[in-house]
């Protein structure tokens, strides 16, 4: 590996600071990092990330809109190259990457490093191209680490000036680089691939976070990164400095670009170690409260949601902000879901819904995002009983150290009160869980139990596999 030296800016401003050649440095990092360069614990995190992300894809593929996405994508052509995780048949690599990236996020069960979602873009891109070229397992794991490292840094660079979330446009940087590595591009071609991928910056419209548009379009960087790399490999010329240029991708999507973050400790400090996964599908800000609700339900053998007189939620301000994001709609969010003006996606960001459904069922999975639960009497009753309050200590802990805390207090109509509190979500880097649980939940009903265990074993020893297609064959449904 080599690091790029700073070079002059192109602005012509004599007072401007030199702009590091970020695109070139990322291209070299993506093409030259070897499996042996990566610390063993980072390899293990990436392997687990792949396992968990595929579990998310399987679970997401059970949602009604997943079948619509698969059917609609057939217009892009048929092919036998890459596996659809949770759907029958195969597709060309770009289409399969798009499908898998979309279903990985369809119920908000995807992971993140630093502040940026990553696995749902990185893993589908790497798997699809890996299948296309018959990449060895160690290249798959290495590429996933590369994706995390670049994604974490680009997210840090724009976090003060861009609308962040899992629609972050920084995926347009890591996905073409990952495809470039696996397709065998050289450094110049990889830099051009970033240009092709990033020219049209994919900023999301906030209103789209209520519908399947978000699900589908969040998969576009995975598809487009592969196409961009293919175009560059064929010699299509693009800009060589699309990331760092004052009129490039990051400056286009963010009012503030902290250039110092882009190459900070690249190849020395491993941002993959900050990976957070989710035990349950919902926006991360809601997860501690959801775990509390599940714990309350488990404590009360004869629990009847219809006898709850008050449901009080306390947490950081950001949880309350997300929770009430769609609460001013007219007609309300539930009625609009009923009318198919929007979808369950809005409820993935609604802390109240996730908590109520968890309290009713003692679990939160894809089934809780189906209409039977959304429009149930129990949820309707709880909607009129729920209250939110900010906890300044939890608020400060979130911003100081990304502690996603919450407290849930349930008061029954006979006066009994149950309180549960979590200071951090399950799946945070400092509170891990066994990702085989997530894989099994997702794959249940799609693969037989023996195949599920075989797949878990194969994914947990992925670096020993000579051709990733030996593993993806097990994953076919």
């Amino acid at each position, binding site marked *: 590996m080599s690091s790029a030296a700073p070079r002059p800016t192109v602005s012509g401003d004599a007072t401007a600071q030199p702009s590091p050649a970020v695109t070139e440095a990322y291209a070299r990092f993506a093409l030259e990092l070897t499996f042996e360069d990566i610390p063993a614990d980072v390899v293990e995190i990436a392997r687990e990330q792949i396992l968990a992300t595929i579990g998310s894809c399987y679970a997401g593929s059970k949602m009604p809109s997943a079948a619509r996405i698969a059917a609609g994508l057939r217009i892009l052509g048929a092919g036998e190259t890459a596996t659809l995780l949770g759907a029958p048949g195969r597709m060309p690599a770009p289409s399969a990457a798009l499908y898998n990236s979309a279903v990985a996020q369809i119920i908000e069960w995807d992971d993140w490093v630093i502040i940026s979602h990553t696995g749902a873009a990185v893993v589908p891109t790497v798997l699809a191209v890996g299948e296309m070229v018959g990449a060895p397992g160690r290249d798959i794991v290495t590429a996933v680490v590369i994706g995390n490292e670049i994604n974490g840094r680009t997210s840090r660079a724009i*976090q*003060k*000036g861009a*609308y962040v979330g899992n629609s972050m446009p920084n995926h347009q940087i890591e996905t073409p680089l990952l495809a470039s590595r696996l397709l065998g591009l050289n450094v110049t071609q990889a830099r051009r691939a970033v240009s092709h991928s990033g020219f049209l910056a994919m900023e999301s419209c*906030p*209103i789209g976070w*209520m519908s399947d548009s978000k699900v589908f379009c969040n998969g576009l960087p995975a598809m487009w990164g592969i196409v961009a790399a293919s175009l560059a490999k064929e010699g299509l010329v693009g800009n060589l400095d699309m990331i760092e240029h004052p009129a490039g991708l990051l400056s286009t999507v963010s*009012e503030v670009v902290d250039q110092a973050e882009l190459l900070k400790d690249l190849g020395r400090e491993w941002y993959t170690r900050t990976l957070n996964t989710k035990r349950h599908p919902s926006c991360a800000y809601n997860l501690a409260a959801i775990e509390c609700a599940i714990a309350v339900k488990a404590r009360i053998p004869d629990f009847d949601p219809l006898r709850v007189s008050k449901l009080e939620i306390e947490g*950081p*301000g*950001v949880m*309350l*902000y997300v929770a*009430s*994001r*769609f*609460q*001013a*709609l*007219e007609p309300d969010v539930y009625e609009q879901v009923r009318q198919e003006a929007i979808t369950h996606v809005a409820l993935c960001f609604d802390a109240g819904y996730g908590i109520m459904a968890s309290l009713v069922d003692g679990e939160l999975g894809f089934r809780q995002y189906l209409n039977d639960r959304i429009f149930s009497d129990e949820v309707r009753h709880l909607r009129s009983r729920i209250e*939110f*309050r*900010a906890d*300044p200590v939890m*608020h*400060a802990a979130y*911003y100081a150290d990304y502690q996603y805390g919450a407290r849930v207090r349930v008061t029954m109509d006979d006066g009994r009160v149950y309180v549960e509190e979590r200071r951090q979500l399950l799946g945070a880097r400092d509170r891990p869980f066994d990702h085989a649980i997530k894989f099994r939940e997702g794959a249940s009903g799609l693969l037989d139990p023996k195949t599920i265990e075989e797949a878990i074993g194969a994914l947990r020893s992925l670096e020993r596999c000579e051709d990733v297609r030996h593993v993806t064959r097990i994953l076919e449904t």
Partner: protein
Amino acid sequence: MQTPATPDPNAGPLYIGLSRFARLWSVQRGRLVSARLEGALGRAIRCESTTGEIVEFCLRREQLDFESEGSPRTPHATIRMNPKDWSRVFTGELHVMAIILAGRAPFPKDQRRLLMQFSMLLQTTMLSGTAGNE
């Protein structure tokens, strides 16, 4: 103009709501401001009700400074909502962005980040408030 100790008795609901926010904000002494939210500090924000009431202020780390009437400063962001929505925002039940996402308030491109940051700070502050710390 500094935060008033008591609202003007002739003030409208927008001024009264923002005065309560100002009091609660002072109590928090900047605790709710993180690096990602501090972009809302030091900016002129103009709040308008569809009834015609207008209040302008600047949010600082430990206090809110109301602007005098007829301030020549061009606001960095303007929030215009109906009184019912303002009322729900001042209880903390909703935030400004929720009203925007419902299509009942404007969301100009050049004001978006400030509106999102202020929206979160306003709601968090209102939901942090109890009779005891007012």
